[in-house]
C-alpha cells in the first residue's frame, strides 16, 4: 500500500483540460511534482487524494481506488494548500481531532508525537488564529502525519514559509522519505525540488512532460537536438553558411507559418547562438527573426531551471 499509480488520468472542466492523460507511478521516497503555476499540479494532487474524480483514467493506492473510498485515508495523509479555518481551535486540539477521526488507540499520545515531529510543541496550546504561516503549515502537517500514513501528499508546502522553517520542513520530508514512506510534494520552484527530491515529475499545461532523476532529465534536455526558425534578408545565403557549422545537423528552406524561413536543427546550441550573428554580419545579411520552433518542453524547463 505504498505505491500511488495513475493510469491515463485526465480531468477537464467544461472545455478546459486541466490534466491531460497522465500516467505515473509514485513510489517510496521523496518525489517532487514540478511545474509552473497553473500547470495542473493542484488538480493532480486533489485527484490523488480522492478529492476530485478523474474525468478519465484511474488512480489507485496499492490496489484500491482513491475516489469515493474513505478507507484509503488510513494510509494516506494530505496537506492541502487551503488554510485551516478552524482558527478557534488550538494547534493541539486541531491535531487531536484528526487523531480521533482516525480512531487511533491513543489519540493523545499520537498527537504529542506528531507535534514533536513537526517541532510545534511549544506553541501547540495557542489558538491557530495566532499562528504564523510556517506554524500553520506545520500544524497541517502534524494533522496529516498523526496516523503515520505510508503515503503523504503535500500541495505547495513551502509557499510563504520563511527560509529557516523551510529548511526544517525539508529535513522533515527527507526524513520521512528515508523511513520508507511515499512523499509527494508540488512546487513551482526548482531549487526546492532539487534539494530534497531525487525523483521528479514535471507537468506542463496539464501534460506529463518528464519524469525520472532530476540530473538525467536535465542531460536529456540539453543533448536533445532543438529546432529554430530564422527569417532573414537572404535566407538561402544564410542557410548555406549555417550548414557549414558543426553544431548544425540540418537546414531546410521552406514556408513556415505566413512566410518563407529557414528551419535549423541544432545539436550544439552554444556554437549556433554565437555563430549566427557573426556569420550574418560578415555577409551583410539582416536577421529578422530567431525563434525556437519546438518550445514546449525546453522553454518550460529553461524557465524552471532559471527561476
Amino acid at each position, binding site marked *: 500500500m505504498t505505491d500511488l499509480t495513475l493510469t491515463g488520468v485526465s480531468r477537464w472542466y467544461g472545455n478546459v483540460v*486541466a490534466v491531460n492523460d497522465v500516467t505515473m507511478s509514485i513510489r517510496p521516497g521523496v518525489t517532487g511534482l514540478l511545474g509552473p503555476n497553473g500547470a495542473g499540479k493542484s488538480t493532480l494532487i486533489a485527484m490523488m487524494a480522492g478529492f476530485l474524480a478523474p474525468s478519465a483514467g484511474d488512480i489507485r493506492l496499492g490496489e484500491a481506488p482513491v475516489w469515493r473510498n474513505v478507507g484509503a485515508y488510513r494510509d*494516506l495523509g494530505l496537506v492541502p494548500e487551503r488554510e*485551516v479555518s478552524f482558527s478557534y481551535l488550538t494547534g493541539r486540539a486541531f491535531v487531536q481531532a484528526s487523531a480521533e477521526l482516525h480512531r487511533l488507540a491513543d489519540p493523545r499520545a499520537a498527537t504529542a508525537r506528531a507535534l514533536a515531529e513537526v517541532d510545534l510543541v511549544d506553541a501547540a496550546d495557542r489558538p491557530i488564529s495566532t499562528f504564523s504561516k510556517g506554524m500553520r503549515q506545520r500544524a497541517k502537517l502534524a494533522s496529516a502525519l498523526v496516523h503515520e500514513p505510508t503515503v503523504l501528499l503535500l500541495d505547495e508546502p513551502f509557499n510563504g514559509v520563511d527560509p529557516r522553517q523551510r529548511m526544517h520542513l525539508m529535513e522533515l520530508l527527507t526524513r520521512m522519505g528515508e523511513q520508507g514512506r511515499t512523499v509527494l510534494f508540488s512546487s513551482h520552484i526548482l531549487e526546492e525540488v532539487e534539494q530534497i527530491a531525487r525523483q521528479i515529475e514535471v507537468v506542463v499545461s496539464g501534460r506529463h512532460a518528464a519524469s525520472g532523476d532530476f540530473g538525467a532529465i536535465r542531460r536529456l534536455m540539453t543533448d536533445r537536438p532543438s529546432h529554430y526558425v530564422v527569417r532573414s534578408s537572404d535566407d538561402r545565403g544564410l542557410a548555406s553558411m549555417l550548414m557549414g557549422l558543426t553544431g548544425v545537423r540540418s537546414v531546410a528552406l521552406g514556408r513556415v507559418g505566413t512566410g518563407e524561413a529557414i528551419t535549423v536543427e541544432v545539436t550544439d546550441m552554444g556554437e549556433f547562438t554565437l555563430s549566427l550573428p557573426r556569420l550574418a554580419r560578415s555577409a551583410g545579411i539582416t536577421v529578422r527573426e530567431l525563434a525556437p520552433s519546438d518550445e514546449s518542453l525546453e522553454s518550460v524547463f529553461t524557465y524552471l531551471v532559471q527561476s
Partner: protein
Amino acid sequence: MNLTIMRLALQALVGQRRGLVILALPVLLVALAGVLRALTGEPVSANAVVVEVGIALVVPLVALLAANGVLGPEIDDGSVVYLLSTPVSRYAVAASKFVVAAGVAAAAAVTGLMGATLAGGLSGRWVVVSVVVGAGGAVLYTALFSAIAAATRHGMIAGLVYVTVVESLLGRFLGGFRYVSVRAFAERLGEVAADVDLPVADLSTSYAVVASLVLLGVGVGGAGWRLARFQLRGDE
C-alpha cells in the same frame, strides 16, 4: 455518528458570532412577549406572538442559521477537507453535523417559544405546543435547510426565499402550498399533541408524519451525498 465531528460542529456553532445571533432570536421573542404583557396586563395573544412571530419567523431562522453554520462555510472555503481526509464515512459526518445543528436549533426554538409562552402568561397547553412545534419544527427546518445548503452555495438566501416567499407569501394565498410547508407539518403535529387550534389548513396527520420522515431522510441523505462527492478545487 462521530463524537469528534459533533464536538467540532458544536464549537463552530456556539463558540462564535453565529452563536450570538442564534441566541438573540429567542431572547427577542421572549422580550416581545414580556413587553406586550407588561403593557396590557393580561395574557398576550398566542396567535400574534407564539404563532406569527415565534413559529413563523424565529423557528425557521434559528434552524437556517444552525444548518448553514455546520455545513456552509466549511464547504465554501474548502476546510472541510481536514475532516474528510479521514476514514470516517461521509454520511456519518453529515449525520453528526445534522444532529448538532438540529439539537442547537431545537434548544433555541423551544427556549424561545416556551419563554414567550410563560412570559406572556399563556396556558399550559401552549407550553406543550412550544415543545412539540419548537423542537419538531426546528428539526424539520434544519433537515430542509441542510438539503438546500448541500445543493447550492447560496443556502442562506435560498432558505430565506423559501420561508418568506413559499411559506409566508404564497402559502397565505394558495392553499396547495401547505403540502410543501414545513411550518404546516410542524403545526399539525403541535395541534395533535396539545389540543389547541392552530391556523393550519387541513392537512392529514398521517401526511404530516410521512412528509416529516421523508424530509429528515432527504436532509441528512442529501448532505451526506454532497460530502461523499466533495471536490477540492485548486486556487488555479
